[in-house]
């Protein structure tokens, strides 16, 4: 495949700017290949993250032509407009440098949404017997494969408008625990995810579901949390 790709890459921190690079086109080239070429051949000071290169770790997520994507699983052919690409750090997160976003707030929100499992069984109890086809388990399974890449968080307009909003990934995590019958923190978790910074802030724009590379539906998880909170409030449990 001949020709060059015109690539604009974000450089610096929050007040940085785009820098242009010419990168040779190659067959089956991914956006991560492009970024790697820039760092190895054109400018070794470029900062970016990646690890597995096969869509398992989620660390290479960036904005590609304004859309959050895993760069390792995004082919240039699918996203380049007129042989040009714009690559920026993930939206809605502070920029550390170049293409590296600060993920602390993203994961702090998982903790704020009570994203930790707390079982009610002790080591003396037998294994929990959870039927794989029971409704709660099926609902939890639908969201359990999240790898925390923050693509949904970068896609969410509500996060942009309300920085306190917990975001799709943290709420999806909370939902999988609410539906886990071995967990004992359901009410505390519902308390943590209700309100203006939680599930009630979601407008169901579905951007998170549209962009999730794992094809999960945080929108459905958040709608489920709204229902569970409503039930708990109406029953007087909250």
């Amino acid at each position, binding site marked *: 495949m001949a020709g060059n790709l015109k690539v604009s890459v974000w450089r610096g921190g929050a007040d940085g700017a785009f820098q242009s690079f010419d990168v040779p086109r190659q067959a089956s080239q991914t956006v991560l290949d492009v970024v790697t070429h820039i760092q190895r051949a054109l400018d070794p000071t470029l900062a970016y993250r990646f690890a597995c290169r096969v869509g398992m770790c989620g660390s290479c997520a960036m904005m590609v032509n304004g859309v959050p994507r895993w760069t390792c699983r995004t082919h240039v052919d699918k996203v380049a407009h007129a042989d040009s690409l714009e690559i920026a750090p993930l939206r809605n997160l502070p920029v550390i440098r170049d293409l590296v976003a600060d993920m602390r707030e993203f994961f702090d929100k998982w903790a704020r949404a009570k994203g930790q499992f707390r079982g009610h069984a002790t080591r003396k109890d037998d294994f929990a017997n959870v039927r794989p086809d029971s409704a709660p388990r099926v609902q939890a399974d639908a969201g359990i494969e999240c790898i925390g890449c923050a693509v949904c968080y970068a896609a969410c307009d509500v996060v942009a*408008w309300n920085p306190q909003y917990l975001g799709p990934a943290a709420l999806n995590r909370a939902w999988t625990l609410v539906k886990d019958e071995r967990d004992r923190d359901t009410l505390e978790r519902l308390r943590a995810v209700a*309100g*203006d910074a939680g599930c*009630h802030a979601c*407008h169901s724009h579905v951007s998170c579901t549209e962009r999730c590379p794992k094809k999960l539906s945080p929108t459905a998880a958040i709608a489920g949390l*709204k229902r569970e*909170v409503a039930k708990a*409030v*109406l029953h007087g449990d909250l």
Partner: protein
Amino acid sequence: MTFRGEARLWIAQRASAAVLALCVAVHLVTIVYAVRSGLTAAEILQRTRGSIAWFAFYSLFVLAVTVHAPIGLRSVLSEWLGWRGRSRDFALLLFAAFLGWTGMRAVLGVFA
């Protein structure tokens, strides 16, 4: 506002939306019927004046709007203008009162 309050507002908005879906449909069908049948204003008033059914229906409509619109506007004000807290909620209470007052004035105008 507490999470309980936020949850109640959400329930109120969903419930009022369900009522509005029905009310808007009935309202639109009524308008189309009145226009297509060529009813005059006097003929319309003749049907609505003293009608408990129309009074109850449009009072419910106004109540649903009074609940639904300020809750939706609450999110718009906080997300687009960054206006949060008690001052916003107080302003929205006034807005709800305005909607209720003007709405019921209109209802009474065709009932009384």
